[in-house]
């Protein structure tokens, strides 16, 4: 096994995903088998190979710092699970 259940719990916390105990067990097995498959990449010596960064060479794209979109606060706030006038209402963030 490459992966332990404790590691799965840790990754789930990093990913902000609640898992049931059954999911933890199942995901440990499934991810372990997937990672086993990934091991085939170690057959290749890549010591002198640059990691890929982009399919095509792209320069930094700059633009003038100018507002181009129309303000549309109502449409944006319409999707909020909870709001107060023109604010998103969220759970307490700082204790």
């Amino acid at each position, binding site marked *: 096994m490459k992966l332990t259940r404790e590691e799965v719990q840790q990754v789930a916390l990093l990913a902000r995903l609640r898992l049931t105990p059954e999911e933890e067990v199942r995901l440990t097995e499934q991810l372990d088998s997937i990672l086993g498959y990934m091991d085939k990449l170690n057959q290749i010596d890549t010591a002198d190979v640059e990691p890929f960064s982009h399919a095509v060479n792209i320069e930094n794209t700059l633009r003038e710092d100018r507002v181009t979109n129309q303000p549309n606060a109502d449409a944006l706030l*319409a999707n909020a699970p909870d709001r107060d006038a023109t604010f998103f209402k969220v759970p307490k963030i700082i204790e």
Partner: protein
Amino acid sequence: MTLAQLTLHEASDKLRKREISSVELTEAVFQRIADTDDKIRAYLILARDAALERAKRADEKLKQGTDPAPLLGIPIALKDNFLTKGLRTTCASKILGDFMPPYDATTVEKVLAAGAVITGKTNLDEFAMGSSAENSAFFPTRNPWNLERIPGGSSGGAAAAVAADECIAALGTDTGGSIRQPAACCGIVGLKPTYGRVSRYGIIAFASSMDQVGPMTKDVRDSALLLEAIAGRDPGDSTSADLTVPRYSEMLTGEIKGLRLGIPKEYFVSGMQPEVEQAVRGAIGELEKHGAIIEEISLPHTEYAVAVYYIVATAEASSNLARYDGMRYGRRAAAKDLTETYMISRDEGFGAEVKRRIMLGTYALSAGYYDAYYLKAQRVRTLIKRDFDAAFQRCDVILTPTAPTTAFKLGEKTQDPL
């Protein structure tokens, strides 16, 4: 024969000649949907009223007759990961709830500006993760040719809708085959354009270094016409290429004499369905007869492609999907504190496949494993790219089967996490 069976260019010709109206064409498409979609279930959301309204406006423009765009009055379906202003967008996930996009994706803006009629939003694997459309949080779509079989995925709804004449053409997205494979399963034309050719602004992101928008159509000419309409530089997507868009439709001369076709030997492997190999070899023979030069080539790192794809795509997805936190839009669960709100909202909102990929991607990017998985995959990806660069020195086109098998049965492969 119903008008819904027309290709885009046939319908466009008839509209220009005023043999048919866009309202008649749109009505025929919605009649076809009414007759077939309870079995196929290609659509998640229909937009009949808005479509007929647009069709009416298209007819007025057609009456004026001043060189209409090829898309004017044409009913087009959109995969439900395109943001559509005022038309609900789900990405086939529960986490988006009743999300109503406040703006249109650039590609949607473009087809609307060209006068297209949006029929609705088609089903997909949740967040475009899958190759059968079975991972939709709502229901699976079925292959119109055989209802026991999958339509492919993730753009399975779009492919099924095109194949069943439930639209004239569709737009899908492709990250690791999500246009091409369902197109193959449903017997239509699907095109993943070169990265950078089409703007992704307003497309719900899955793996940003690979996501592309592309046409799904009844024939090649339709794909050319649709790509002309959506391609080009967009300030909203800094990765879109600042290159002139060729008139693809004018390049379809039928002349292929001297075209160099590379056939990568690694794509003809054991486990391939004999009929698929036979069909592809048949097509190669046909092209050779028309003057193409066939050359066997090698893409030596092919066997590593799936592993590389799986690491890179899940890593990018885990990052892209971090935005679904239930704060500004989408589903928010009741919980005792902030962290628990995130965790429960995401648990309830995401399906099993999406969770599995977020977990794998988070693992591959996490401290201690980043070098072994993510960086290793990106190094091998460089080698894969070099294979293609070398191949394109020798040939103009690389010809391969799209998938090793024809469409499999629903439920047949749901147990295999890879």
